[in-house]
């Protein structure tokens, strides 16, 4: 055998070099690419365990975006996710790891339900009194539950990841106590149905005027979600407080030198984050379920973490990602085995954070 020089089989190789600047369009492209890769990996895994990935994919699209009816259901599922996604995005922007949106959601749902079930207002009151009161109660309950973790972090420097997680379990048990005990209806683990004045208006409520809206369950909570997305965006981009939050997130040391009170901001952001998650609970009991029950959230709080990351903490991105995951959760109800949606969510998150390196480094094909 004659050796004809040392020519490699592949005449190119990959080199990485540090990026000095990240173009604005790049995060969008890498995120979309990462989601595509994640769906591919999920498809392969589904095929390995003996499923038909094309059929599963087609099922997800058909049963979540296929017609106006299911699209409306998708928006119903997306509504709590917008709130929990915003809650996480706001806290994460300050590098404050609030993993407790789930518990704050439960507390918000409990607070909003208390207005009707204690009851704090006489039955038959005007919805214009009941609904705003439920919103206030839901936001305050969620905010206090998040505030506990914020206070512990600011006062004792206790790791907020662990406290918010532990508070999740406590909040779920707290709601369980009320629906099994004082508020139980006939011994079942759910409360009685709320009276109509405590329901958020749904599209189907206007079917008399516009018949096409009949059966559509998208409720006012979705609009609240859009408003909150705008408010969070405005807060972060156009207010002094938002500037402080971003500065602490990017460079805590510089923030301290600039005279920003970090402890106060921690508590404040946890209160706001918890309030947003509490609103998710309020909108679920008032707009969708119309009663308090055990397992009111199938992990919306945790999905909020992924949504925040997928959106790269951009509030409007949160809305889009929430709709995507709303579709996945809606379709996932019928997918067996039950773990597949959680698995897909995890893989999506992995691929998105893995793709982050492309934002920091340029990969070039060079001739050897």
């Amino acid at each position, binding site marked *: 055998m004659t050796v004809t020089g040392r020519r490699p089989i592949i005449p190119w190789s990959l080199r990485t070099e540090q990026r000095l600047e990240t173009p604005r369009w790049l995060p969008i492209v890498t995120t979309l690419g990462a989601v595509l890769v994640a769906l591919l990996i999920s498809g392969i895994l589904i095929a390995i365990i003996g499923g038909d990935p094309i059929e599963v994919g087609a099922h997800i699209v058909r049963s979540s975006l296929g017609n106006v009816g299911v699209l409306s259901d998708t928006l119903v599922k997306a509504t709590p996710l917008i709130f929990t996604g915003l809650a996480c995005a706001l806290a994460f922007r300050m590098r404050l790891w609030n993993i407790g949106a789930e518990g704050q959601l439960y507390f918000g749902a409990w607070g909003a339900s208390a207005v009707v079930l204690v009851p704090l207002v006489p039955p038959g009151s005007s919805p214009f009194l009941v609904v705003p009161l439920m919103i206030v109660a839901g936001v305050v309950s969620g905010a206090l539950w998040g505030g506990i973790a914020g206070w512990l972090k600011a006062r004792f420097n206790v790791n907020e990841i662990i406290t918010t997680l532990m508070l999740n379990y406590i909040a779920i048990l*707290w709601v*369980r106590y009320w629906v099994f005990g004082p508020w139980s209806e006939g011994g079942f683990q759910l409360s009685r149905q709320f009276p109509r004045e405590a329901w958020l208006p749904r599209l189907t409520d206007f079917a008399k005027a516009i018949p096409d809206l009949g059966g559509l369950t998208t409720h006012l909570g979705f609009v609240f979600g859009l408003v909150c997305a705008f408010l969070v965006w405005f807060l972060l981009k156009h207010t002094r407080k938002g500037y402080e939050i971003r500065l602490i997130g990017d460079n805590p040391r510089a923030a301290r030198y600039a005279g920003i009170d970090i402890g106060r901001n921690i508590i404040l952001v946890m209160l706001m984050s918890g309030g947003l998650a509490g609103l998710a609970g309020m909108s679920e009991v008032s707009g969708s379920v119309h009663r308090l029950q055990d397992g009111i959230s199938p992990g919306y709080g945790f999905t909020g973490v992924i949504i925040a990351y997928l959106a790269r903490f951009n509030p409007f991105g949160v809305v889009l990602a929430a709709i995507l995951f709303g579709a996945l959760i809606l379709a996932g109800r019928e997918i067996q085995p039950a773990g597949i949606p959680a698995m897909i969510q995890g893989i999506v998150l*992995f691929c998105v954070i893995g793709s982050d390196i492309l934002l920091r480094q340029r990969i070039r094909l060079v001739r050897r």
Partner: protein
Amino acid sequence: MNFEIILAAGVASGTILLFAAIGEIFTERAGIINLGVEGMMFVGALAGFKVGIETGNPWLGLALAMAAGALLALLHAIVCIHFQADQIVSGLALTFVGTGVALVMGEGLATARTGALLPTLTIPVLSGIPFLGGVFFTDQSVLVYVGYLLVPAAYLWIDHTRPGLHLRAVGEQPSAADALGIDVYRTRYVYTLFGGALAGLAGATISMAVTPGWFSNQETSGLGWIAIGLVIFAQWSPGRALIGAYLIAVIRRMTLDLQGPSDFFGFANPFFTYQPSTFFLNMLPYAMVILVLVIGSREARRRRVGAPASLGVPYVRGERGH
């Protein structure tokens, strides 16, 4: 209530937390924070139980549980060490993946089982010690004894051996370790995988010894997260992890026993007469973890001990800083 039985049961289930916490201590000492313990425990619990009953060989189940935990940790290691991704988020992703995969694979698996898959042992002489013998050395699973041995072994390894010194150097100041010729990347890979294997073992301890069976999404009930809290309380030292693990486990066990009797010293037991109030008892272990963390952080501040200096910071060779 028989305190000997409660404490013995606490030691048994404390072993779950002990394995997971010690594994996480090794990982974090190398500068990698892995929040995916819950997910790794989940796959470990499933792999151990499933392989154990299907092959009839529990030891093979145990080995595969550790391998499954390590395999999941490998995912974390690649993303965090080579892709320099955010370790907090990667750990969360790992929890999702682990839980999801375990639920998918465990679909339709038999639930509760009467006997443990792993043998129990009574140590001849030591079990004769009054009270302590009954708590620590009578009819405990072999894994409990592994736990006893693991704590001093981990302590000696980290604090008194050369590889342990390298481990600490990599976690505290990787650039200095690199300059000394220690392979930072390899060290971090090894200990991340080892932490994953111990988390898998912790999962198998649940499904094969403490509460034998597969209880689907009830399997780990937050124990993985509690273990991560324990690591902070333990200030990254194995001995303190042991105390914390047994303490939390005994409290968890007590909450069950408090529901049993109809009265205490003539007073009606509210947890017996009004069933929903037992949910408050169930909150106790989680509240305890928060309390223990508050105490731990105050003490840490006083003694000026903290997390490994480079915990959660990716190491890039040649970059300024760490």
